[in-house]
């Protein structure tokens, strides 16, 4: 048994009782990384020296100073979140030499204040554009449950590392499902908070109207605990909302009696794998047994979400990624005699195929003569999708369905077919377009031993109800206690 089979709360007690030290926890991380990361490839950069220095500092502190909601807890940070003095690549060749972002993202300041220990920076799809981690410049992260399969993306390293027991929690970012989908594929808990719940100051921007930082853990309780640390308004991010942060851990009462669940028929219909559908229907039976009720509803515009999403997110990305010009940071092309060629060659050499494809799509959708037909049209459809959710939340507390239509797919299976890759995100994307919170929790396994995720979607800023529903289900089932046997399929 690994120390990481305990919850943060249990480890806090063990630290308090001096059964273990912070160094033991950091050892647990690095020993496991040495054991499995050659296969899993969850990390881009390890921060071993600083992690041990921090462990020593925390262990040596007087007992009265040994406080902090994440005291001594080893975590991984997605590599698009700025870490002062620690290389931040966004999974891109362009930022391979970006060795010092010079500041900490606000979420990192939060972790530091509560004395978490950063183990390293997590592998990801380049600039968070991808659903399989195969677009990473560094390596394709593998699924800890079966390394022939993808971990999902774009926060694939963050989810795989938690699933493989390399860290106890990680931060990711979710623009169209990039936390929830890899969490589902790797059998862990991943939350995308409400748009505006968590500061994005220091998150490399992909699609600004959709991006949100969130948490990946093994249990719902741990997840709630980490969110409490990073949530809240930040004067450095004008899109972070002035809404009080409640105690999410206090919401975990186990009581879902009378909870009204909506199940969109589009989420259990055509295109959803029968195994996935069965796992979700079984989860609904668990909710019934706990005293909740569910009814089938419709999100009639959900089938248009993928198309609207790719136009909106790519358009915003084409603008956001204009900053990568090879002047202030990043890798500059050596083949350029003039300024224009320097821009073009640096970007073409530094960006991978998928990133270029999206910049091209976005630039096209925003260009003269096409703006109204594509970008503005997509934003109008976004309104219809958001209205669908608003209407359902008038009568129900949460929306429940699968996180993904299928379990993880094989490495190489979809990478040459962008449209097929994109349409796999059809169940997570509407949540980003509507800006609501959504979580993925383990709800079963496929016949081949791959995890299946249950998605629970809540009202704006009602993470408490999402967590309460997720926790009650988790406590009534044992899916979250299963562990992968790395290197082969296991149940």
């Amino acid at each position, binding site marked *: 048994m690994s120390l990481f089979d305990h919850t943060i709360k249990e480890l806090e007690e063990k630290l308090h009782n001096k059964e273990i030290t912070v160094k033991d926890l950091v050892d647990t991380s690095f020993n496991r990384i040495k054991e499995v990361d050659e296969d899993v490839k969850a990390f881009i950069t390890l921060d071993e020296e600083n992690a041990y220095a921090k462990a020593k500092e925390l262990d040596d502190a007087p007992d009265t100073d040994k406080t902090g909601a994440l005291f001594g807890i080893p975590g991984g940070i997605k590599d698009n979140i700025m870490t002062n003095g620690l290389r931040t690549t966004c999974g891109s060749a362009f930022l391979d*030499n*970006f060795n*010092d972002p*010079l*500041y900490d993202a606000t979420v990192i300041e939060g972790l530091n204040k509560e004395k978490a220990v950063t183990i390293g920076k997590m592998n990801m799809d380049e600039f968070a554009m991808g659903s399989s981690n195969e677009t990473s410049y560094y390596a394709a992260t593998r699924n800890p449950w079966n390394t022939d399969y993808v971990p999902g993306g774009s926060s694939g390293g963050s989810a795989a590392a938690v699933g493989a027991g390399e860290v106890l929690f990680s931060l990711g970012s979710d623009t169209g499902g990039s936390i929830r989908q890899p969490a589902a594929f790797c059998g862990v808990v991943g939350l995308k908070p409400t*748009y*505006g719940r968590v500061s994005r100051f220091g998150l490399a921007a992909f699609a600004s109207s959709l991006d949100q930082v969130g948490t990946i853990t093994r249990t719902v309780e741990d997840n709630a605990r980490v969110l409490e640390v990073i949530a809240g308004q930040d*004067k450095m991010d*004008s*899109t972070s*909302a002035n809404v009080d942060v409640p105690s999410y851990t206090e919401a975990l009462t186990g009581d879902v009696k009378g909870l009204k669940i909506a199940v969109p028929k589009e989420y259990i219909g055509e295109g959803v794998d029968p195994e996935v559908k069965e796992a979700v229907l079984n989860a609904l039976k668990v909710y019934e047994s706990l005293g909740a009720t569910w009814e089938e509803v419709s999100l009639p515009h959900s089938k*248009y979400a*993928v*198309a*609207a999403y*790719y*136009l909106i997110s790519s358009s915003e990305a*084409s603008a956001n990624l*204009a900053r990568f*010009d*090879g*002047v*202030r*940071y*990043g*890798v*500059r092309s050596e083949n350029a*005699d*003039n*300024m*224009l060629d320097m*821009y073009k*060659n640096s*970007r*073409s050499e530094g*960006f991978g195929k998928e990133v*270029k*494809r999206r*910049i*091209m*799509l976005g*630039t*096209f959708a925003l*260009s003269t003569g096409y703006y109204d037909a*594509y970008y503005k*049209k*997509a*934003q*109008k*459809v*976004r*309104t*219809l999708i*958001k209205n669908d959710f608003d209407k359902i939340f008038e009568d129900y507390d949460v929306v429940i369905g699968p996180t993904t239509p299928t379990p993880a797919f094989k490495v190489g299976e979809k990478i040459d077919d*962008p*449209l097929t890759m*994109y349409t796999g995100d059809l169940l997570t994307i509407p949540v980003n*377009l509507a*800006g609501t919170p959504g979580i993925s929790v383990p709800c079963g396994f496929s016949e081949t031993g791959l995890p299946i995720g249950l998605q629970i979607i809540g009202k*704006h800023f009602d993470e408490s109800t999402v967590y309460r529903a997720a926790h009650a289900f988790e406590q009534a089932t044992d899916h979250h206690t299963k562990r992968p046997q790395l290197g082969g399929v296991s149940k």
Partner: protein
Amino acid sequence: MSDITKDQVKHVAHLARLAITEDEAAELTKELSAIIGFAEQLNELDTEGVEPTTHVLNMKNVMRKDEPKATITQEEALKNAPDKKDGHYRVPAIMD
């Protein structure tokens, strides 16, 4: 409308400041046509009178006081630059 030409792709690449080869232009023409073709399904929806959503939260013009404070030094600002000289970023010639 969904048929994008290779010339259009080259023009868009220039706008996006990307250098692409003839082969890449051909491939992107095919891929972008497929993706735009897929996106044309949005035209099935009547969006007459529907307001576009640019931002899901009901907030605008978030203001704060303009208070000067020290952030990073000139040396730090230049730390990650690929080329620099005398405290400035250095770039190739802008004009021929």
